[in-house]
Structure formats: structure tokens, C-alpha cells
């Protein structure tokens, strides 16, 4: 039930973005803002977080140095780069 009124100030640029996004989605600006609130504030519960923490810390992955981790990200970008076109 929508019975709470919330008045907020946004910048002109934010308003334009909201209106454009709402137009693309075929919904009202109000509906878009409500969706954003649900997506952003519908955070997991404390139990959800604890379960996630337990799952993460039960993992026993292999150590990679900070340099190796950095290189791993670079590798993917190198692979994704298009091959040079011969002139």
C-alpha cells in the first residue's frame, strides 16, 4: 500500500536521468524510485550476512600474491583487446 509521502530534492541532471530511465522502462518516475529503494535498501538480514561470512571463510583457495591477482585482471583485458589491424 502506498500511503507514505516522501519529498526529496534532486539535481536537474538527476531528474533528467530519472525521467529518461522511466521513459525507457515504460514506468512512472515514482515507480522507478520505488524500485530503486527496494533494490538498494532491501539489504540481506544479519543471518544472511553471517551465513555468507561462514561460507566465505570455510573456503580454502590457493594463495595468489597481490601482484598475481593484479596480473590476472590484466590478462583478461589483454585477451579481450582486438587484434591489431595490419595497415
Amino acid at each position, binding site marked *: 500500500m502506498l500511503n507514505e509521502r516522501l519529498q526529496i530534492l534532486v539535481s536537474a541532471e538527476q531528474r533528467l536521468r530519472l525521467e529518461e530511465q522511466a521513459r525507457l522502462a515504460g514506468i512512472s518516475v515514482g515507480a522507478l524510485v520505488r524500485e530503486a529503494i527496494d533494490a538498494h535498501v532491501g539489504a*540481506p538480514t544479519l543471518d544472511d550476512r553471517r551465513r*555468507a*561470512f561462514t561460507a566465505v571463510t570455510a*573456503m*580454502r583457495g*590457493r594463495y595468489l600474491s597481490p601482484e598475481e591477482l593484479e596480473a590476472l585482471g590484466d590478462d583478461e583485458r589483454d585477451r579481450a583487446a582486438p587484434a591489431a589491424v595490419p595497415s
Partner: protein
Amino acid sequence: MAFFVDANVIIYAATAGPYHEPCVEILRAISEGTAAGRTSTAVIEEVWHVELSGKAGDISGLAENAHTLLAPLLAVDHETVAAAFALPGSPLGANDRIHVATCTLNGFDAIVTADVDFDHARGLRRVDPLDQRALRRLLAP
């Protein structure tokens, strides 16, 4: 004190090695709500990439669990990218610049990371997970 959590903190909490214990403590404090650590969509993408590469062993589900643990994530949008482009030259790579811009736009002045490249990020203090004193200050309720 609010701080930004880099991808390596999440990965090290799930892998063996010298960073494991302090990174577990960081995530424990965040999961219990006693520390204000936040991260972004870009960081979760990095974690996911490492997970899927298989190079850090079996860490299946790490990105998804990190997403739950650290929700809501900070957004990376056109404003973030514009701020990243405007950063002065430094040895930081593209994704790291996105992280610096995310910190700036969200008012964070500290990033927890093992990546020493962030020492070059102006206006941002790097806290190394192995720096026990700095970490204690950061995690103090």
C-alpha cells in the same frame, strides 16, 4: 569509520596465506555490523573473475556470498566513470581508478587493500590488512 573494501580482501578471506586472518577479521566485523566497510559492483566483478578463472583454487560461490555480505553495493555509474577519467595521472589501472572515484564520490578516505598501487591515490589512505595497528583503528566500533 567508513572504508572501502578492495577485491583482494574478499579473495584473501577465502584463500590460504599471510593475509587470510586479517581479511577474515575485516569481513567478520562487516558481517556483524560493527564496521562500516562497503564495496562496489566493480569489486564484486573482480572477485567473480578470479573465482571463475580457477587460478585461486576452488572458491566457488565467493562472489555471490560477498555480494550478500557486503550489500548494498556502491554503484558504478556514469558519474563514477567521469570522476575516474578526471583523476590525475598515476600508476593505477582502469579498474583501480574506478575504485578511487567510487571512494571520492561516496566520501570514503580509506581503502583496505593489499595492492600497494593505491599508495599513489591522492586523497585516499591505504590500509594494508597486515598493518595491525591501522586495522584496529579502522575496525574500532
